[in-house]
């Protein structure tokens, strides 16, 4: 096994739910030793050997500490002293209450890095707001602008804010670690997940501040170069044995005139394509409802896969609107690149998790272990790392400071 890039870095991880665990999973995949500190309550949010919870916690170590016991707190502080980075996703008062905030930990370890991924940040009048990914999406505009044509909100069914908070958190951690490596200086990073997700809205924010333009749902208006056709088009049902799936779609984007010309040939130059009202991009955008209706007739007669292949052969941007089964089982590209690595669980059963979206020629990240059960690594963490004897550990466990 090659050396992974972050080997030698130790992360003490107090995060939970989704955003924080995504950040630390990225660090763990690349070789950092991530010690997840669990507190007995709340209980794990699901089966760690499968699905989302396995995805979030794979490759981490777990130790369970009673943080309301002073001896538990002392263990946590000693672990922080042996770590490069301490990360949490609480509001400001929690870590401070434990004496685990940056100022306190810096006194123990002057070059410590602390990252707090709270909902709305540690400062400001709303820093104590309780929030989750979906509520941050609502506050930032994502929810309102994911709308049907009549403006009815139509999403999100998931927490993009958490995934965005996660990759932003990993980035913040790496930037702070890099700075420390160059200068020897640690620091405190106050990451507001609200700000992280707001930052990725994109140029629409400047359209508001520069042009004072109110943003409405984009629908399938292109948010990059203008395009028509541009959107999703219903395809023929997919039949697998007895089951018929009539929720099949293809996304198609035709940006330039050259692409349109190739597109017309690819779909067999049906008569409507020579109609003057579709001659230029400007006209195609103006008459897009009619254009979309014609195109839908063409896609409806084909499987999404066939339509994609035919259009890609003509170098047109087109792709199956993949559902979970397409994505995890059928997509030939993701399979070819090994994007769903296998993890083996202690009972011998194996499952797949989400992979790492890049390969580094000098040594890639790698998913090397499944997710730990709560407290699974107590021996390593309290024994090997803190040097507590078996008797001391047993005593702390019996006293309820170490949770088993």
């Amino acid at each position, binding site marked *: 096994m090659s050396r992974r890039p972050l080997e030698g870095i130790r992360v003490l991880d107090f995060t939970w739910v989704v955003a924080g665990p995504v950040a630390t999973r990225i660090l763990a995949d690349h070789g950092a030793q991530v010690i997840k500190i669990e507190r007995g309550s709340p209980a794990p949010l699901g089966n760690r050997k499968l699905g989302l919870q*396995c995805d979030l916690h794979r490759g981490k170590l777990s130790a369970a500490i009673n943080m309301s016991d002073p001896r538990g707190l002392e263990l946590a502080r000693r672990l922080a002293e042996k770590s490069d980075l301490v990360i949490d996703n609480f509001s400001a008062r929690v870590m401070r209450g434990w004496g685990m905030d940056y100022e306190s930990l810096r006194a123990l370890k002057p070059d410590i890095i602390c990252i707090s991924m709270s909902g709305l940040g540690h400062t400001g009048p709303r820093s104590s707001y309780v929030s989750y990914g*979906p509520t941050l999406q609502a506050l930032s505009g994502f929810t309102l602008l994911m709308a049907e044509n009549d403006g009815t909100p139509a*999403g999100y069914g998931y927490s993009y804010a958490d995934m965005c908070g996660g990759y932003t958190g990993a*980035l913040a951690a*790496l930037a702070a670690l890099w700075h420390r490596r160059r200068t020897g200086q640690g620091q405190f*990073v106050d990451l507001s997940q609200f700000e992280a997700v707001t930052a990725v809205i994109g140029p629409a924010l*400047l359209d508001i501040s520069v042009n004072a333009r109110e943003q409405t749902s984009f629908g399938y208006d292109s948010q990059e170069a203008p395009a028509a056709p541009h959107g999703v088009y219903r395809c023929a049902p997919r039949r697998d044995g007895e089951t018929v799936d009539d929720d099949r779609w293809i996304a198609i984007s035709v940006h330039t005139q050259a692409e349109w010309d190739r597109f017309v040939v690819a779909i067999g130059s049906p008569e409507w394509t020579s109609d003057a009202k579709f001659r230029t991009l400007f006209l195609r955008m103006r008459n897009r409802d009619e254009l979309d209706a014609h195109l839908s007739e063409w896609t409806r007669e084909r499987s999404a896969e066939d339509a994609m292949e035919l259009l890609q052969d003509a170098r047109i941007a087109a792709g199956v609107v993949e559902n979970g089964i397409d994505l995890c089982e059928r997509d030939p590209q993701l399979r070819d690149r090994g994007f769903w690595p296998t993890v083996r669980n202690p009972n011998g059963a194996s499952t797949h998790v989400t992979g790492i*979206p890049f390969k580094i020629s000098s040594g890639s990240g790698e998913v090397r272990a499944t997710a730990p059960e709560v407290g699974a690594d107590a021996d390593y963490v309290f024994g090997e790392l803190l040097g507590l004897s078996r008797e001391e550990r047993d005593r702390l466990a019996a006293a309820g400071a170490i949770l088993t």
Partner: protein
Amino acid sequence: MNKAGSEKAGALAGLRVLDLSDHRAQLCARIFADLGADVIKIEPPGGDGARRLGPFAGDVPHPDRSLFHWFYNLNKRSLTLDLHNPDGAAVMRRLARSADIVIESFSPGTMATLGIGWDELHRDNPALILLSIAPFGQTGPYRDFKADDTVLTALAGMLYVNGFPGHAPVRPLGLQAYHSAAHYGAIAILCALFARDHSGEGAWIDLSMQEATACAVEHVAGSYFENQIAEPRRGTLHWSRFFRVGKCRDGFIMHCTLGDWTSLIEWVKADGKADDLIDPAYQQVMHRNVMAEHLFDVLDKWVADYPRDELLEHAQMLRQPYATVRPPEALFDDEQLSARGFFVEVEHPELGRKFRYPGAPFVMNGTPWRVYRRPPLVGEHTGAILRDEIGMSADEMSALAAEGVI
């Protein structure tokens, strides 16, 4: 943002980045520029394609007024260079000798064809890190396939789950496939920098936008690997079944049933709208989960007459994780963002004005995020960079300019 500390160097100060990427990947190098790296945007003479994308300042189409360009290229310098001309490619190789990082998003194989592929760049500068961002990466059966952000969100499982069952899937706000790829690209480069510290060796990074986007979808892969199902579209009902959008008197609200149930239901009851939610069974989180549709229907009737903001204030006072469903315009008046200085002013002297830009995605107290310079005009720094960084003579520059290379 900590204005007082803004004289401190950024976290990535001292790194030199050459950004050859097109409109799909420019956020990646901007992340480095915002954190203090010296980022040189290398664009074709006349300006790169991002500058032709709207919206435009004052709706006047011009390469220096594209808000698309502004958003993705803040804090960078600009050098124009025709990489398709061998003399231009040679200049690029000279620049890459003293760079730490090159970021490109050409079709796979293009860099090699231009004579600036990994083999050449690595031979010239073994410590160089080259990040190649492509829709499907550098290998595999889709390697040469075309995709824009819409098609990528489709092929990454992000699009299918947006919208109502039975209706067409709906696009998310912003180019989130590109944004995910840019962030993972920055993460990848930093990982490669750590590896380089250890070995002295640079690296070629092969990043797939499709994969990065799939990494930014929360629940689809997990549900499949756990239950072999395809997550459906659920409208505004979150897959966890603890959140749904409700309509109030003057807009929309995000309900959440993960707060303290007793205090929420006492409030609803006091308003005379609790209906059967007073049943003690709802104290159980799992019961609320199973009954989500009915529960939110009752709560929707409750909020129907409430003003949005009043509901939010009272909910948060009771520590209920509610939120208003706001338009993005509201961000510019948001007290929390203002108090934290999230939006920053960027002066555009050519337009005689300052404009508010979104600022730091995280506040680094020791190494502040900051505005170093407004987005560059086309080729604004060409002369200075060629003179100062590779010691090019004025004669050589004139010759290249006459040829149309710079």
